[in-house]
């Protein structure tokens, strides 16, 4: 897989103290199943090493995270190279039950937004309350970013991640970079 490149190929932009950065190749597995199902739950936490997150949250440990996407969908983040192995493990372990595990690493892009004012840069584009009190570390929100779908989460002070579809990653990156360039609001 020496040929693999992320859609944004390492792009970085910084303005007004906010950095918008391509996170490169990121392993992502879209998991669908019944969360209430004990088996699903145990298998997943056994293989990933993480609990199933609560509604609109993300749980992380080292280079692995699991984010709540919908009542029957999770997004599992693992190192890019591990994805196929993990999918195979899950399929093996859950054989016979109704679930879906697909590799979506290449279908999406992961972008980091960091620095004081990062929340404002995002808030120019999403109809979500990103003020510290309302959207803290460990929270995830799937939403609309300007004209496309995106998932946003907070993974530390002034540090956010955005996942969008691969085909629009340039759009999302440019949008965020432009928002940073146009200046901070000073309201969040």
């Amino acid at each position, binding site marked *: *897989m*020496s*040929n*693999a*490149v*992320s*859609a944004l190929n390492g792009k970085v932009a910084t303005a007004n103290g906010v950095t918008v950065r391509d996170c490169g*190749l990121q392993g992502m597995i*879209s998991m*669908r*199943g019944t969360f209430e199902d004990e088996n699903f739950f145990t298998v997943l936490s056994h293989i990933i090493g993480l609990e199933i997150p609560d509604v609109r949250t993300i749980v992380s440990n080292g280079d692995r995270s699991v984010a709540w996407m919908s009542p*029957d969908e999770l997004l599992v983040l693992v190192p890019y190279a591990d994805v196929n192995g993990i999918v195979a493990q899950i399929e093996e372990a859950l054989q016979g039950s*109704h*679930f*879906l595990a*697909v*590799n*979506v*690493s*290449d*279908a*999406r892009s992961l972008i980091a937004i960091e620095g004081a004012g990062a929340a*404002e840069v995002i*808030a*120019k*584009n*999403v*109809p*979500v*309350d*990103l*003020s510290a*009190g*309302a959207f803290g570390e460990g929270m995830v929100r799937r939403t609309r970013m*300007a*004209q*496309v779908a995106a998932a946003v989460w907070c993974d530390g002070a002034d540090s956010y991640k955005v996942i969008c*579809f*691969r*085909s*629009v990653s*340039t*759009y*999302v990156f*440019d*949008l965020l970079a*432009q*928002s940073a360039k*146009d*200046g901070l*609001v000073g*309201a969040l």
Partner: protein
Amino acid sequence: MSTRLSTGGRLINRNKPVEFQFNGKRLKGYEGDTLASALFANDQMMVGRSFKYHRPRGVVASGAEEPNALMNLNSGGRFEPNQRATTQEVYDGLTSTSQNHWPSLEFDIGAINQLFARWLPAGFYYKMFIHPRAFWKHVYEPFIRQSAGLGQVPKEQDADVYEHFYFFCDVMVVGGGVAGLTAAMEAAKSGKKVLVVEQTAAWGGRAVVDGGLIDGESTEAWINQTLAKLADMPNVTLRDRTMASGVYDHGYVLAYERLTDHLADKSGARHRLWRIRAGQIVTATGAIERPLSFAGNDIPGVLLAAAVRDYVVNWGVSVGDRTVVVTNNDDAYRTALALKKAGLSVPAIVDAREGGAGAIGAEAEAAGIRVLKGKGIAKVKGGKRVTGVAICSQAGEGAVLEEIACECVAMSGGWSPVVHLWSHCGGKLVWDDAKVMFRPDVDKGPTGADGKPFVIAAGSANGYLGMAEGLADAAAAGRAAAGVKGEGAPSATDAAEKAVAPVWLMPQGAGPKKRMKAWLDYQNDVKVSDVMLAAQEGYESVEHTKRYTTLGMATDQGKLSNINGLAILSKSLDAPIPAVGTTTFRPPYTPISMGSIGGSARGDLFQPLRRTPMHDWHDGNGVDWEPVGHWRRGYAFVRNGEKVHDAVNREILNVRENVGLLDASTLGKIIVKGPDAGKFLDMLYTNMMSTLPIGKCRYGLMCNENGFLSDDGVVVRLNEDTWLCHTTTGGADRIHGWMEDWLQCEWWDWKVYTANITEQLAQVAVAGPKARKLLESFGGDMDLSKEAFPFMEWREGKLGEFDARIYRISFSGELSYEVAVPASQGAAFWNALLEKGQEFGVMPYGTEAMHIMRAEKGFIMIGDETDGTIIPQDLNLQWALSKKKEDYLGKRAQERSHMADPKRWKLVGVETVDGSVIPDGSHAPAPGTNANGQRNTQGRITSTYYSPTLKKGIAMALVANGPDRMGETIEFQDENGGLIKAKIVDPCFYDKDGEKQNV
């Protein structure tokens, strides 16, 4: 003469002079000046011409309500028409020109209209220019249009950028006057998150100019302290130069922040449109003074009384040495006193009330001002500026009692609460007879998602014009908005005032001549006589009057004129004012730039552009792009010296002879998995998918519930419980949504999961006789031979170093493989194909070549052969309609009489007799005409091309009884109104037996 006073001007910084231009003249002002105050400082009384009669016009107001002083600002990419001089701050280098005159402001040809004003009353054009018919378009309308319009037209691309910002708060306070600040403070004390916006650059609203004490301090000191306290609170956000432009359903508010309009340095966003969700909105938007309707009330130098005092106190400018104040209420006396204090002369206060004013009246008289009671203005004298007024009895018809020389008339017809934001979303108003105003009906505010009111009006916006009562109301509003209990408010005392008198026409008995000179709507030249005419002619509804006279439709949206106009209407109809009612308040409160509405969505960010992994390669290699939804696909890859169509033909021939590559990554790919997946797909597709063997592919059709074809594509069985459905490029998201819709809302007990993995894979169609050789040259672990890998099957494995899944399907009629690799490897794979393909003559081909090749094969194309009204039967696709299935989406619909009608047009191939290409969209006429005299038709072309393979025109068409008419020649329209003969043939023009694709 208007001039800058040597002292005063709390908002200007006399240490920071700035230079700006007006109509080419270089003028001086100070930082903190508005364009209007700076123009007054330079004795520029006349600032524009009115819309219809081109009357000379001066500034009348000091804020957002200004109807007259509209300017063209700046030039080039920063040119902006219709900017109000009263809200534009001056800065070094600002250029401005006045509007609506030619050749110049002072000498304007259009002013000739004034002479005909008598024949140009409201609605005159409805009664004229009717004959002769052609004259309207060619003579009258061009003339009328030429003289209409205000500002000049921007010519260049906007040089600025704009942005949006989402903000959420518990309480939003609109208006930074004393009421707004009080409400904000009360709400903020509760700990709730509070946002306060003020449209101007200065906080405090009217109070500083009006004077008085709050909590024992001067209003200015109190405002500064309160602001400082609010600024210190972490739960409070304060924004000046930010206008709440509209209140929308469910507590959505737009606010318009002007970031650089007042600066010489224009870097960064120019405007920021805040999209606010507020739990409760407090509208402390103040009140607007009304003009009085007397003859000549539009002559430059006639201003609102409060504006005159604003100019003196805030900006240190006097409009004239001698100001006559004319009023129906006490507040205007403040102007007289303020002028006196500034050392200016006030020859008289003309008070329409017999009894004159309250305490402040005595104060004025004590200051030596002559107060004329029960009097009015018969007429203002002057042309391009005021020279004096003629005084009369308010009660009479206007006999002149005396004339008073002056340069300025300060008029006040009372105050109207700013109820716009309250009303935008349905808040109701009540007429207050005592206060002579419409104010919010507090029990009938706009309601939100929970059915409860979400707007609270406060202070003078709620009809409490006195300081003490206004502060009390505002404090209560702040608490109510925050949902807390409490008591108390900043303390103030209101002097005893005499009630305002309803004076709608001055003098009360003014005759037609005067009424024709008494302006209601300054910008649109609507006079008292026009409203009366509307009533007389039966345009009785206030909405009819508005539209017939254009009252309130100008850029100020009737902030000054509406109440006066409807009062005149009510008198004309002899109906009470509340029965007449107001027109509808609509956003925005004051006009907002289109740029700000668009926000950052311009240029590259106008819309998302979806790129395939190979996008950059295409971009650099002669691609002619075609937008498909938000994707861009290569229509053709043009080489040096080629026209697009040369490229298309070359690409086709190369596929037919060698091998071509099509970037098919945009095709939709949806995983459907689960124990009920087969059953589900059998419902979705017209044909049977549950029986598809693992390892195989099947072409499938999807219809909507109306029976119409909506999408098609190849379905792949990946394993026992997993299928992969390919859709059209435009169909991917739609079909995925469609699947989820059925699974979640109809068959929610079926065990099926779907996933849209369109972008996970880069997909390339490798097509042409040398396709196999090219792929084999990669090496890997898959046997691609005819025997090991037959048509309509798929394989997964290594293709060289690439992880690939290959489908042996063909849309071109040639030996063809569609290869999917992970998207991150797409670019590399594409490059590898080009490199390894060199020896086989590989070339990329675009969507047009693909379209033509499929047409040569007689394959249908969603969007060409279908248009949302076509059922599979029309396209002879009965073979794909499973007879074994009891039901599928669209089946019942196709049983309806019109769908089962044998007369429906059916798909055939068409070939011109002379080999030419039939034009796109061509129809085949049939003899005779229908009941409406339209020519009968018997068919139409769905796709038509020049086939480089066959070296002639080929087409597909829907023709009445088509399949039964093989070999028959019929006629289609040509491009020039004539007809082309064409033969009905089989739609498959190329390799009917499929020998090429099955090698």
